[in-house]
């Protein structure tokens, strides 16, 4: 039960309170670029959620077994090579290169797989897939996972990493869909000439960010509610 409640808190934290777009400013490019219509925005959101989950899974595996300080695989290699006893091997300097490689190749594979086996799905979000490689939201999720794996006192398991990734993806989908809904209405509004396009979109995003600040503290309330539930 403890783990379940901590997972719920991670999910709410990633999706609402510290929304990837409106709090950490990652994924701004598609947020401004692909938010003209609700259905394409929703498709983009789903594609990002999909890729973010796969990339987080892979990066958790790589970080846990290879990259974190004291990871088993490099230690085993070190011992086989006859290195000194009791040394700690830390390959975390390679993390960024590894992550970007993982993201780029998983996007490529996902695109190939979807095109071959899910042609319907490919039609709906295939066009967004290549764009996702340079979407900061995905690298950001990998970095968050890395942060939690480098500190041995709060070593995250795979389930926590995946919940963070899905929460972040859901948060991105919520933000971009809301944005697209507002922009569809904005087309009918009388916006000052100079602010048309990106200007007004950013101001709308600012107001949305203020609204999302209202979620601050929700996690504590949920935690108390869960505690009360367990107590009974």
């Amino acid at each position: 039960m403890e783990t379940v409640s901590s997972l719920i808190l991670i999910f709410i934290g990633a999706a609402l309170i510290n929304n990837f777009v409106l709090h950490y400013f990652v994924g701004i490019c598609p947020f401004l670029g692909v938010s003209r219509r609700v259905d394409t925005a929703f498709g983009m959101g789903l594609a990002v959620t999909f890729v973010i989950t796969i990339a987080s899974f892979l990066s958790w595996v790589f970080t846990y077994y290879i990259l974190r300080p004291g990871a088993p695989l490099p230690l085993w290699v070190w011992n086989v090579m006859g290195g000194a006893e009791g040394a700690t091997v830390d390959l975390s300097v390679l993390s960024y290169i590894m992550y970007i490689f993982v993201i780029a190749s998983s996007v490529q594979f996902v695109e190939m797989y979807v095109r071959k086996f899910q042609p319907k799905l490919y039609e709906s979000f295939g066009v967004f897939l290549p764009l996702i490689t340079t979407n900061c939201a995905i690298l950001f999720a990998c970095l968050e996972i890395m942060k939690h794996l480098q500190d041995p006192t709060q070593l995250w398991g795979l389930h926590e990493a995946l919940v963070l990734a899905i929460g972040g993806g859901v948060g991105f989908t919520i933000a971009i869909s809301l944005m697209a809904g507002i922009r569809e209405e904005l087309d009918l509004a009388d916006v000052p000439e100079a602010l048309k396009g990106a200007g007004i979109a950013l101001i709308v995003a600012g107001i949305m960010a203020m609204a999302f600040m209202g979620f601050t503290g929700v996690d504590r309330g949920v935690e108390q509610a869960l505690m009360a539930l367990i107590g009974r």
Partner: protein
Amino acid sequence: MSDQPTAAERFLNGILPENPVYRQLLGMCPVLAVTSGMKPAITMAGATAFVLIMSNTLVSLIRGLLKPHLRILVFTLTIATFVTIADRFLAAFMYDMSKQLGPYVPLIIVNCLIISRAEICASKQKLGTAVADAVGMSLGFALALASIATVREILGSGTWFGIDVLGSGWPAWGIMVLPPGAFLTLGLLLGGAEWFGKRRAAKAS
């Protein structure tokens, strides 16, 4: 594009006419995230400049070896290498700043500005042109970051580079240093730049 701009023209283009932030809307993530004060903004601009100049140099040197279908992967791996160097440097010599910038230093890897310069300019141009382009673009990027950070820091905490400018009577607008302030400031500054550009164009014609 029959007549290619020279190195000097590319350098000047990067600063204002093709400013990466105000004109091309590239690299928005650090622009919004690190501009709550001048110090993080300038550090970020410096790190980005280092990565941009080094990656443009290297990509320009190896442009003859690039395979079309693998070029994006080569660009990102090159950028990731230099970002690792910048990140380790910051962690070693400016530890507090590196903590404050947090994940935004590694996120330079996916800054569209750097990859678009590699794709548009460095992979097709000679070394000198590519470096001039990178320096111009970095200056433009630094200028944009500094302008946003100036507005946000002065309104948000009444200071500039940590120096008190508005006096102690200033009721700090807390919202300006929080995420919504970043969006609002950038939106209004973009509108202002657009309006100014249009008015100048109207005057010229």
